[in-house]
């Protein structure tokens, strides 16, 4: 066979399109095997740059499989492989010595000669492909060319694979982070949408809804600047951080301030706009703070939808700015809050104001699912939207004047204060006078203390408090699902007496599923 034919045969072996059906890992292995046998080498290995682009990580190997198993990492610019990646050119070592090879496995295996080429796709170095021999060998230009050919194939394949992987991972992440079903909140109707953009799909938009131990409800809309997997990952962290701060802090401005501190410390170069609003348990009022986010739309049965005029503070991750502000907004029965990200209203060659006008025209105080569909129909329609879109609608249900309070907390002493603060706010909404407020706080407090002290063994459980206002009378139920044991100590006896004194009626029902204490107290007691 002529050397020309041989060369052609060899090239065909590494560019063989029949290999394309193989999974990436198998293809890599098969190519390495062919490269090794074509070049009569003893070892062949692929190292890929890690996401930080500071180290090469052994990804596939033949003859030196340990390299992958041990996850060998070579700093960029150092040693044999590090130099190839940094200088973007082939490197040949005829006599391996400790000075020019960092990889301990190459030394242990007694590899004598090495040839390596960079993996470059679309101008970016992705890693290094190298072969080695156990006897001294002089690699010629033709060897380097053939190895580069294989390297180019591996590079383009790796690039495609990484891009697909990024996209699939971002999509999976986005799916897992968006609440699949929104929490059921008495008195509030919720709906949300997330629509990936056309160009490369996902971004860093998110929405979130969560109930807080105090019976309040937090709603969030946010947008991490950037696209793709990186933005989606940062979004996930911001979402978790915000939830954590929301548990600690009541004031939305303070929650965003803490989130800002978190981003500035842990998320280098990240900027995000976030709006965080907290509904009172009565749903008649909400407090919100916005970090550079577009203004929400509010609508009520008596007023046409309009942008809410709120002071806007700096996005998170920018710099230390003036103190953040919280705005309190009243929401009448049937009133609605509409949150969205810029992808909904921003279009090329159209001013933002036009988009916002379209939005306020589209938002009505209908059922929330209808509102979502209408808005998307009018603002997105059949257009191609490059940016992703997130939106969240919360409507206070019409009709009920005071929404029942529902609080479920772990049956531990520290929950007692949470129950009181939720109940206090609810009693304000119920316009309870001072004496009724004091009585209900004490009676519910005693019932909850009983649950904390007596309902559960060491395994613990929950205490559920519900309060309903009907015909001028509050009915509060305190429920556990444990095995009630009789009260111990004189303090408890006094507690039960106190509870009865504070209420018009007390009923205790104990069953296999737990104990329910029902307390009734009229808001205004008739004289005498």
């Amino acid at each position, binding site marked *: 066979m002529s050397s020309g034919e041989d060369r052609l045969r060899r090239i065909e072996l590494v560019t063989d399109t029949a290999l394309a059906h193989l999974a990436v890992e198998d293809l890599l292995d098969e190519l390495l095997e062919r490269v090794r046998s074509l070049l009569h080498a003893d070892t062949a290995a692929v190292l890929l740059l890690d996401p930080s682009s500071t180290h090469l990580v052994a990804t596939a190997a033949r003859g030196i499989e340990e390299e992958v198993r041990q996850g060998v990492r070579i700093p960029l610019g150092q040693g044999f492989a590090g130099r190839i990646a940094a200088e973007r050119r082939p490197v040949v070592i005829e006599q391996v010595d400790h000075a020019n090879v960092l990889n301990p496995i190459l030394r242990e295996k007694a590899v004598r000669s090495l040839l390596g080429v960079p993996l470059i796709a679309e101008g970016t170095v992705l890693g290094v492909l190298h072969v080695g021999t156990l006897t001294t060998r002089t690699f010629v230009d033709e060897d380097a060319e053939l190895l580069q050919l294989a390297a180019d194939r591996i590079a383009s394949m790796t690039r495609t694979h990484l891009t697909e992987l990024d996209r699939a991972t971002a999509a999976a992440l986005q799916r897992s982070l968006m609440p699949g079903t929104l929490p059921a909140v008495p008195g509030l109707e919720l709906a949300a949408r997330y629509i990936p953009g056309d160009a490369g799909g996902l971004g860093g938009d998110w929405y979130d809804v969560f109930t807080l131990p105090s019976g309040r409800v937090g709603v969030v809309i946010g947008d991490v600047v950037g696209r793709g997997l990186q933005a989606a990952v940062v979004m996930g962290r911001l979402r978790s951080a915000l939830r954590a701060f929301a548990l600690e802090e009541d004031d939305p401005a303070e929650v965003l301030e803490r989130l800002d501190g978190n981003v500035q410390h842990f998320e280098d170069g990240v900027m995000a706009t976030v709006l965080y609003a907290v509904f009172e348990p009565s749903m008649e009022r909400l407090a919100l703070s916005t970090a550079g986010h577009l203004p929400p739309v509010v609508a009520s049965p008596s007023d046409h939808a309009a942008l809410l005029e709120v002071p806007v503070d700096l996005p998170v991750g920018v710099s230390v700015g003036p103190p953040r502000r919280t705005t309190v907004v009243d929401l009448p029965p049937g009133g609605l809050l509409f949150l969205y990200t810029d992808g909904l209203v921003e279009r090329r060659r159209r001013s933002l104001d036009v988009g916002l006008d379209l939005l306020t025209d589209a938002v009505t105080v209908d059922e929330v699912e209808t509102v979502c569909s209408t808005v998307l129909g009018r603002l997105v329609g059949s257009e191609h939207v490059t940016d992703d879109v997130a939106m969240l609608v919360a409507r206070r249900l019409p009709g009920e004047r005071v929404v029942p309070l529902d609080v479920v907390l772990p049956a531990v002493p*520290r929950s007692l204060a949470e129950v009181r603060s939720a109940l206090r706010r609810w009693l304000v909404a119920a316009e309870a006078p001072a004496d009724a407020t004091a009585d209900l706080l*004490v009676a519910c*407090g005693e019932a909850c203390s009983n649950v904390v002290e007596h309902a559960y063994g060491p395994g613990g459980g929950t205490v559920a408090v519900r309060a309903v206002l009907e015909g001028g009378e509050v009915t509060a139920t305190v429920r556990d699902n444990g095995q009630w044991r009789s009260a111990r100590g004189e*303090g408890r006896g006094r507690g039960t007496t*106190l509870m009865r004194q504070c209420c018009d009626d007390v009923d205790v029902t104990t069953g296999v599923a737990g104990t329910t204490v029902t307390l009734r107290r009229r808001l205004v007691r008739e004289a005498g």
Partner: protein
Amino acid sequence: MTKATVLVSPDHSRVRIDLGGEIDLENAASVEEQLAAAIPNHLSAVTLDLSGLDYIDSVGLRILFALAARLEVLQIELQVVAPIGSLARRVLELSGFEAIVALDPKRTAAS
């Protein structure tokens, strides 16, 4: 988390203690310790001001009953200030605390 403040202002043989915040199962033991530490047995009188107290339950009441009983044995005079209409006063009235100690509606200036 339940937070209470115990502010102690000694004045020769008297001491004024301002109880603020909330007292329940969670912090009752800590409040009880702070009260005990604030009252050495050489005193002649203790003023316990509950004006700043937003919540007290039966566990907190037990502390006050125990304190009243103990001070009686020690022959230390106890004055309790609880504003009319406050939750603390309501709870103390309902529990019969007045039978042991009269409740002052307003704080009298420490002498």
